[in-house]
């Protein structure tokens, strides 16, 4: 009896895993078969046509090294969106870490009046929906001249990222002992050296995780980029959305695969840090 129950248990887990992975399977079938008609489950022929049409892979016959370079140098839309997404993500992540570092240190190590209120203010953008602030902000940005450009998009991405990086790093500093810094200083190290040799190594692992997730939050931002970028700043999520709305499954699947690749990579490298205990996990709910 108990043994049977155990078996059912395990089969249920396998079934759950298969169901969970179905969309991913569908992505790959769609991306590598251009004519996948109902009711075929397995496509009759594999095809790279979606990738050719997106100008990511050259036409047959031109698939040499030079062919690829020439094609990518012609700056196809997907490459442009990919570069935008990457550069916005990197820039916003670095800026948010630099801004968050001193604040997180103060919040993690010191006790002062209004600390709870300040944390509450910092948390609010992680819970309130983006649509609540971005509609009003959009009109402000138009009058400030930030709308429809790269700088404005970076600035607005800071809103969902900032609170979350501050909170994660506050958690790191709450478990950090600043006495080592005093020791280094009394032994004659200057402020920069102390930071580089004492502080940074201690907080680095947590900081890397915060940075990876900050990048991911920026990477998957659709609404904010669409409204503030006003259609002039094309990123991958915008491309996925518009292709999905226009309804070509092969093209949508191909772009989506490029779009989810970093996400899976980041999960792979951080899976040991990801637990319900770390503040980082709650950020996942927002992606």
């Amino acid at each position, binding site marked *: 009896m108990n043994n049977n129950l155990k078996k059912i*248990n*395990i089969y*249920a*887990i396998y079934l*759950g*895993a298969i169901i*969970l*992975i*179905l*969309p*991913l*399977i*569908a*992505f790959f079938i769609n991306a590598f078969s251009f004519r996948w008609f*109902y*009711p*075929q*489950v397995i496509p009759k022929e594999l095809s790279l046509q979606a990738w050719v049409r997106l100008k990511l892979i050259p036409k047959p016959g031109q698939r040499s090294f030079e062919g690829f370079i020439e094609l990518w140098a012609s700056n196809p839309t997907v490459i442009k969106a990919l570069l935008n997404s990457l550069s916005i993500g990197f820039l916003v992540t670095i800026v948010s870490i630099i*801004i*968050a570092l*001193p*604040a997180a240190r*103060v919040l993690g190590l010191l006790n002062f009046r209004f600390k*709870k209120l300040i944390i509450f*203010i*910092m948390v*609010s*953008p992680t*819970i*309130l*929906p983006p*649509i*609540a*602030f971005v*509609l*009003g*902000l*959009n*009109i402000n940005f138009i009058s400030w001249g930030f709308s429809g450009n790269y700088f404005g998009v970076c600035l607005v991405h800071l*809103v969902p990222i900032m*609170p979350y990086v501050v909170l994660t790093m506050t958690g790191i500093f709450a478990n950090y002992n600043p006495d080592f810094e005093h020791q280094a200083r009394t032994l004659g190290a200057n402020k920069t050296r102390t930071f580089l040799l004492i502080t940074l190594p201690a907080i680095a692992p947590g900081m890397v995780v915060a940075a990876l997730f900050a990048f991911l939050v920026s990477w998957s931002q*659709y*609404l904010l980029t669409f409204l503030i970028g006003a259609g002039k700043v094309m990123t991958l999520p915008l491309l*996925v*959305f518009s292709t*999905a709305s226009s309804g070509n499954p092969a093209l*949508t*699947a191909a772009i*989506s695969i490029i*779009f989810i690749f970093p*996400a899976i990579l980041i*999960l792979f490298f951080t*899976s040991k840090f*990801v*637990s*319900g205990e770390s503040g980082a996990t*709650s950020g*996942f*709910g927002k*992606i």
Partner: protein
Amino acid sequence: MGGERLKIILSLTPPLLIIFTLFFGGIFYGFLQSLGYQPAIGKYEINFSAYYNVMFSERYAKLFWTGLGLNLWVSFASTFLAAVFALFGALAIRKTFFAKTICNFIYSLNLPMPHLVVAVGIIFVFSQSGLLARLASQIGLIGSPGDFPVLVKDKYGLGIILAYIWKEAAFFFIILMSVLQSLGENFEELAQSLGANRWQRFRYVILPLVMPNLFSASIIVFAFSFGAYEVPALLGVIYPQMLPVMAFEFFLNPDLNARSEGMALSIIIAIIVMILVVFYFWLTQAKIRKD
């Protein structure tokens, strides 16, 4: 002492400046516009007519109340079901078995996946010519795609709920796994030695222990699904329409008067979620105090 105070103020100013000018500034300006204050089109009076129009005018009332109903239904159903699936998954997966690491990875796979991609995946799997329909026709359950039930772009929001379950179950799963790991199996073994059966161990031992974390995660998921745009925009229908999509469409309307209504809607969404935030914050603070 004074030096420390200066340090605190200087350190906290940059992030607070961003949050105040961009986030609260955006909400405040949106609120002003929802009150009809639109200098751009020469309107300076302040009134609540946009709120009235959205909620009670003949033109929009039906759209708004069905939308609110759909919002509540989708958020409640997806939060509850995702939590239940994750709970059973997490409880079952604790035991060792073949390919456990792979299963664990697959169960957390949707965690970093953007909602947008999950929505596209749901279309690929559950639409009438999707992967499931093909499998069903292969084993002779259905003939043409039309025989497959409408699960995507349906008026009950089933596709939207499916997408949120897919995505948020992974979030619940990670949180539950870490709680269960930190608890160990001691409590359950104790209960078992006292004669508790499977159901009793689940109901009176495990559930009360995971409930606080499960509940605060539910608030996050509920608040998110209540105000998110991408998933209902891709998987929803024109009527009934979820409120964030409705707000966005009002906003993009070429008629600038509709803009106030869009702002009013986004403020209404924010107020509903704000009530949840306060509740959530109160809950976490109570938990910290208890610890």
